[in-house]
Structures are given as C-alpha cells and as structure tokens.
C-alpha cells in the first residue's frame, strides 16, 4: 500500500494542479485508503462551498472615477515639471554667475590707483586750480575786513 497523500497534494488535486501522472497515482491511493478518501471528499466539499461565497457584485463603473483621478494626477505632474524647470533655470543661472565670477580676471584695485595720480593732476581733475583766484580774493577781503576793524578801534579811541 502507498503512503498516505499529504494535505498539500490533496489541495493540488482538488484545484486541478496535478499532472496526469501525479493525479493517477493519488487517485489509485484514494481507492485503497478510506482515511485519505474521506479527507479528499471533505476538502472537495469545502472547495465547492467556497465557490458559493460570492454574493452578487454591486454594479459600479469605476472608469469615470479612475479617469478623473488620472487626469488630476497628470495635471499635477505637469505642474511639478514646470516648477522643476523654473527652479532648474534659476539654479543654472546662479551657477553660471558664480562660475563667471570665479573665472573672471581680477579688476585694478581702487586704492592703488589713487597713489598713481600726482597732486597736481588731482587738483586739475577736481577743478581746484580754477578756485585759486577766488581763494586769493577771499584772503584779500578777510585782510581788508581785519584792517577795517583796527581802524574802527583806533577811531573809537
């Protein structure tokens, strides 16, 4: 007599998963073993019963819901792509700016340029030479004013 059929083989038998040869072998054992035959009959009955588990399927068409959600998801994706593009452009521009700043030749230092100009040149640049005459005039007025004051003091005495 063959060894008893394990449960997993009975399940495969009921589900129709055994090959023809396997099936024949198991069935021949079931003919001779009441215990295995009983187990098989019970399993088969349970299998059939499970097939009755379904109530009616409630009518529903998911297509409109799915399409709406898919469209929303696509718009969101497009928006994100647009935002990402703008962000990438800004980053790129900033990057180019930084790189250009690093690679550009150094400009002439401001402070050293001042010493290169002579005092005469600076006076000429600022137009101070034109004011020399005015300065003399102011000095004359000051002196005249000062003299006048002395005369007043003498007269008072």
């Amino acid at each position, binding site marked *: 007599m063959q060894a008893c059929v394990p449960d997993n083989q009975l*399940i495969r038998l009921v589900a129709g998963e055994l090959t023809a040869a396997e099936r024949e072998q198991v069935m021949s054992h079931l003919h001779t073993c009441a215990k295995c035959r009983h187990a098989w009959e019970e399993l088969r009955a349970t299998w059939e019963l*499970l097939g009755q588990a379904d109530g*009616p399927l409630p009518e*529903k068409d998911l297509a409109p819901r799915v*399409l709406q959600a898919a469209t929303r998801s696509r718009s969101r994706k497009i928006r994100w792509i647009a935002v990402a593009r703008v962000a990438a452009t800004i980053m790129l521009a900033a990057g180019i700016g930084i790189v250009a700043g690093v690679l550009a030749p150094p400009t002439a230092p401001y402070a050293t340029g001042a010493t290169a100009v002579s005092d005469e040149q600076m006076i000429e640049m600022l137009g101070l030479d034109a004011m020399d005459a005015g300065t003399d005039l102011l000095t004359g007025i000051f002196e005249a004013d000062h003299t006048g004051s002395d005369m007043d003091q003498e007269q008072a005495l």
Partner: protein
Amino acid sequence: MRRIGLGEMNALALLVRRYQDRVRRTAYRILGRWDMADDVAQEAFLRIYRGASRYQPTAAFPTWLHRIVVNLCLDALKRRRAVAYDALESVPESPRPDPLIQQERVRAVQRELARLPERQRIAVVLHRFEGLAHKDIAEVTGWSESAVESLLVRAYARLRERLQEWVET
C-alpha cells in the same frame, strides 16, 4: 498598455472596464468591504496608469495586476487592522433573492473567510477564487512556494472544520 503609456485615456477606460469586476471582487474577498475594495481597485488602476510607460511585459499582465491589488490590500489591512466583516451587513440583495438557506451559507463562508489570518486569507482568495497555482501565488505575493503551501494547508483545514455543518447541508 503601450497606448495607456502614451496617455490615451480611452485605453485606460477600456482596461478599467475589462478588469474592474475581477479586481473589485478580489479586493472585496480580502478586505471584506466594498467601499475599501472600490478604493483599492481605483488605486490599482491609477498605479497601472502611472507605471504604464515603464511597463515591461516580463510577467503576465494578470499576475502584475494581482500583485498590485494584493499589495494595496495588505496596505489597507495595515491601516485598518481589525477588519470586521461589516460587509456582511452590506451584502447587496440579489435582484432575484436567493433562498434563505443559500444566503445563510454565503454569509457563513464569508465570515469564516474573514476570520482567517491575513496571509491565509490572501492565499485562499488567490488560490480558490482567482485560480492561481502555488507558484503564481508565490510570484504575486513574494512569499516562498513552501510558505504558500503551508498557508493553504492550514487555511483549508480550518475552513473545513469551521464550515462542517454547511458542507453537510
């Protein structure tokens, strides 16, 4: 899938209408609630839509679809650990009502199915209702074939024991 990948909404609608009943039923059998099953089905089709452009037909489409649905159901179960089979209350009335005994039998089977541990239930749903072989269940769930075998043996033994009276009816 190629047309969906190109953004053709008509192709997506066709696919949804072709598979929605199957997906909803599978999700319902695992989750036990139609509202959750519908949400899972919608999300499954959206994932297909989003992944369509990258889809490589390395696995059969139904296997891929099952994988998505099972993963979504597992996520949904995680979010809602205690799945009461409230759905039993909402088993819709058939247009031609079944005899009372038949309705009772349906309820009993659904109840016992719902009482199975999560992984056993998924294995039974894919095996008995979706007609997947052990190997395919292993592929869909990512569990080993021997784990699937063990889950099925325990699940059917339990169902056989719990549904004894209905089997004899």
